[in-house]
């Protein structure tokens, strides 16, 4: 009797839960409201866990990797100096390029305004490559804007709130980018392969001259999602597609997506 009752209760709870999930899913506006409500509920718990876990994590990481941290610091100082020197050298060249491109009416990413942002959270799941950042609509950030950092394209904004945004990384399985390389005549479609798997391009014609090490950048075609010239990735492997006269490419993102702390949102909207 008790078992029958508990089974009925479980089935009812299951049915109600499924209905709740379905209703919430179908009414996406409710999900947005629920998200902020869930944040309010979970935040005190997250804060407590953070206060306990973070110092322990830092202590352990510092103790275990102390020598590495010192070496890394020295290397970073050296690279910072080198980058500063390079920046000084390229400044005048950049000005010339900007002048030329503005005379030719070609959009140049170096001339586009950017908003700096801090990464506030990384995707908590295995099935989406996204990060949350600290700037939102109040800072002029809109859905669709490209995001760059660490030497290349990182992704694009998929949702915004007044004070924050979510960036879909280029490695996300739902990400696809139109790119070009070398002479700029050939274009490819590069897709994400998941959180840890980099990028790929399939059905690349055999006539194209592409080899490992080739750097590819956004093509900026009319109606495209990105402005031209943003470095996206470099080719790491070229292989023949089995049973077809095309190449498959494996690519490594130009930006180091594993160490994202600060990034720039390019204030540029895709043309419609």
């Amino acid at each position: 009797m008790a078992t029958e009752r508990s089974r009925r209760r479980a089935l009812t709870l299951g049915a109600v839960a499924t209905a709740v999930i379905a209703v919430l899913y179908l009414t996406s506006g409710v999900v947005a409201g629920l998200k902020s409500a869930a944040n309010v509920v979970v935040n005190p718990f997250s804060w407590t866990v953070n206060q306990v876990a973070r110092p322990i994590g830092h202590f352990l990481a510092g103790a275990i990797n102390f020598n590495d941290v010192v070496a890394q610091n020295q290397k970073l100082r050296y690279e910072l100096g080198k980058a500063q020197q390079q920046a000084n050298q390229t400044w005048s060249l950049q000005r010339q390029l900007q002048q030329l491109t503005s005379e030719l009416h070609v959009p140049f990413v170096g001339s586009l305004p950017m908003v700096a942002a801090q990464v506030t959270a990384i995707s908590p799941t295995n099935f989406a490559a996204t990060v949350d950042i600290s700037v939102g609509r109040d800072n002029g950030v809109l859905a669709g804007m490209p995001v760059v950092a660490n030497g290349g394209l990182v992704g694009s904004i998929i949702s915004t709130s007044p004070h924050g945004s979510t960036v879909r990384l280029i490695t996300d399985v739902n990400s696809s980018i139109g790119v070009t390389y070398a002479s700029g005549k050939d274009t490819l479609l590069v897709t994400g392969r998941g959180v840890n798997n980099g990028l790929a391009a399939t059905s690349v014609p055999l006539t194209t001259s592409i080899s490992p090490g080739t750097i590819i950048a956004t093509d900026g075609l009319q109606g495209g999602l990105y402005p031209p010239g943003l470095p996206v990735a470099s080719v790491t492997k070229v292989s023949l597609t089995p049973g077809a006269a095309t190449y498959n490419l494996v690519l490594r993102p130009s930006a180091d997506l594993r160490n994202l702390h600060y990034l720039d949102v390019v204030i540029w909207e895709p043309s419609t």
Partner: protein
Amino acid sequence: MRRALVPAALVTLLVVAIQLEVFSSLRVSGVVFMLVWLWPLCVGLAGYTSLALFVALLGGIMFDTHATTPFGLTALVGMVLGYVASRLGREGVGDLDSAAIWVTPVIAAVGGFLAPLLYVGAGYFELNFGLWRGSLLSSMVVNAGAFFLFSRWVSRFAKLVGSVGERARR
């Protein structure tokens, strides 16, 4: 069950917080260990069907609101794991005190192995056909391993939380 709801809800919120704050950055081979799935599975193994469904729903929805993946999938998978585990738990399979020491970890490992697959399968019902292209196999293996390692401790804790209601009834 009703008396255990409050402690179970509090523990579930703590589990979600740990999932978001600790395990989202502490990755093994780039894969996140899904404590939000292990928790309902262990509550189920302790024999509490309704409680397992409740914690799976609460934890799953709270987690899903923080992720960009299709809404409700984590909750759905957690509920399936919790329900199936509770059927086993009610038969005494996986009981920490009477069953062999390896039974609970092995059941949990099977659950952890199948959960990402179930998640990808359920994604098709929300018209998301790209989930399998992610780190599916790594997720299955890492979660199976982590579920195997942690299941006995989490089950012990689940039993403690579930027994709050029983003690109150007595």
